[in-house]
């Protein structure tokens, strides 16, 4: 009979758990999910917004740009974080699900090519040389294969994993096609800190990842100046904002469901997001647009302009040009 007290406490716990099991009461929920690159910006916004609007709970998940869109299409989220423009297929599925989206760029991320601190020769490279290194079936195994005169030392390669938007964007901007990447002797990791450590500990290695990770590890790595045709440019806040660091600076986005944008709290949150994007972007390691660009984006959202203008825009196109070019439909 000694089992009875155990049973009794068990029943009490169950009852306590399930009573008043409803939901969150009056709090209105906004759910965001998607890219791990955009995630920190959205999380910061959610965090700040918690102090502004007490009865709106903003929740942020991270399941990758593609994974985010899957949930967006299933109407499980109202806003989708994306480190690349929406794909045609995804757009078709969204329309099929009976709603539309507003494309809202939030700031720049500068992809940074990095080399070991002790590497003093390869501090500047052209896009053609980067392509030679990173494209599918690349014959490059030694630095001397990249440029004559560089040492004949074996290289090691560190790349973000293939489901990340960073990988998509880099391969498209450098190798001409999203997903076109070398596989041999390359370490792929979804964890950018693994890439940082890899390049840091291998003298003749090369890798790439988001600007935020470079900023945090400036003293341990060297950023390669990239020559996109008009001379080598080192990634900095300035060169990314003014567009001279090209083609490796990319805008990152949130996609807002048109259905959800009708809800007052969602619209207000997106407006708050855009108002605070410049300061928050800097704080989490990204690069804000110029004020005039934010004005254009705010107007687009205010007018609820649907559709994607960024998909298909060549990497490195000035952002204002994309926004004003075919900006309406």
């Amino acid at each position: 009979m000694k089992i009875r007290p155990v049973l009794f406490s068990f029943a009490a716990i169950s009852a306590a758990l399930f009573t008043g099991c409803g939901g969150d009461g009056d709090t209105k929920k906004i759910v965001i999910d998607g890219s791990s690159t955009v995630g920190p910006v959205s999380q910061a916004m959610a965090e700040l917004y918690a102090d502004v609007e007490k009865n709106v709970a903003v929740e942020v998940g991270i399941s990758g740009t593609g994974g985010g869109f899957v949930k967006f299409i299933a109407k499980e989220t109202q806003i989708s974080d994306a480190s690349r423009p929406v794909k045609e297929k995804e757009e078709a599925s969204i329309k099929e699900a009976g709603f539309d989206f507003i494309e809202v760029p939030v700031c720049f991320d500068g992809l940074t090519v990095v080399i070991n601190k002790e590497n003093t020769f390869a501090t500047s490279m052209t896009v053609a040389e980067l392509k030679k290194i990173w494209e599918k079936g690349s014959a490059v195994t030694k630095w001397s294969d990249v440029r004559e005169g560089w040492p004949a030392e074996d290289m090691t390669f560190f790349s973000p994993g293939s489901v990340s938007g960073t990988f998509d964007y880099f391969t498209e901007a450098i190798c001409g096609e999203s997903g076109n990447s070398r596989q041999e002797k390359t370490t792929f990791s979804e964890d950018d800190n693994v890439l940082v450590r890899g390049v840091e500990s291998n003298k003749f290695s090369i890798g790439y990842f988001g600007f935020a990770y470079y900023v945090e590890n400036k003293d341990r790595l060297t950023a390669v100046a990239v020559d996109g045709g008009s001379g080598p440019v080192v990634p900095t806040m300035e060169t990314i904002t003014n567009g001279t660091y090209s083609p490796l600076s990319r805008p990152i986005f949130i996609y807002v469901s048109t259905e959800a944008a009708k809800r007052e709290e969602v619209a207000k949150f997106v407006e708050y997001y855009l108002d605070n994007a410049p300061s928050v972007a800097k704080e989490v390691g990204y690069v804000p647009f110029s004020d005039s660009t934010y004005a254009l984006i705010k107007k687009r959202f205010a007018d609820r302009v649907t559709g994607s203008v960024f998909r298909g825009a060549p990497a490195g196109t000035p952002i204002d040009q994309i926004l004003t070019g075919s900006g309406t439909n």
Partner: protein
Amino acid sequence: MSLKSRKMVGIGATGVFMFATILAVLILVILIFEIVSSGYKDLDWKFITSPPSVLSAEKAGIWPALMGSIWLMALTAVISIPVGIGAAIYLEELTVKNKLTRIIEVNISNLAGVPSIVYGILGLGIFVRQFHMGRSVLAGALTMSLLILPVIIVSAREALKAVPDSIRQAAYGLGATKIQTIWHHVLPAAVPGIVTGIILALSRAVGETAPIAMIGALSYIHDAPKGVMSSFTALPLQIYNWISYPQKEFHEIAGAAILVLLILLLTMNSIAITIRQRFERNRQW
């Protein structure tokens, strides 16, 4: 082989085994030392009770994640314990051994070896999408229950099996029915073993990241869950999230969060030990 050389072999073997033991313990000690030394300085009451932050590691805390983990664990326990023990009693005490029960047995043992991410996919498909539970604590707990049920059933069966048959015979001899025998004699005698299995299974559930990441528990949420339908995040996910940030300060507070998770697990294990000892003291065989 002479006596001397045989003795030498014995001494050598003892040395090897002792080395293996010391190595295992040493690794554990180093691990705990690492965690404690990197985590203790960030661990204070504010860290426990604050919501997470991306803007400043100093302000960041683990309240929603800690409460999420506790909710997840409690709900998983409530769901999986009755089902698990019920299944074990049925298979061990009530049914006759035939082909069907053999098939069920083999399946349960196999399920215990299925990778946890597979349960995550199952949970996402069935609970989150099919039953429209969303990313709630309930969906998470049901998924975790699936994950740990095989472990609970197998260990509960072993515990029931270990109860001597003479106890059952004595109860029958005094006129007890089958259910009375199980309820008043077999089950109390098996409690220590059952509880050990449950706690080990629950500890596993608390430490698991893959299934809850799969069903889409959140990485940022400001409040602790308020009910079974609230969305949630859990400690392992919060730790994973912080480790992947670029800033080193977040890697350090991840250490503090690991320490909290460790304390949570050790607390659970000590509860298990206490319960086991209480029941064992009362055992009369």
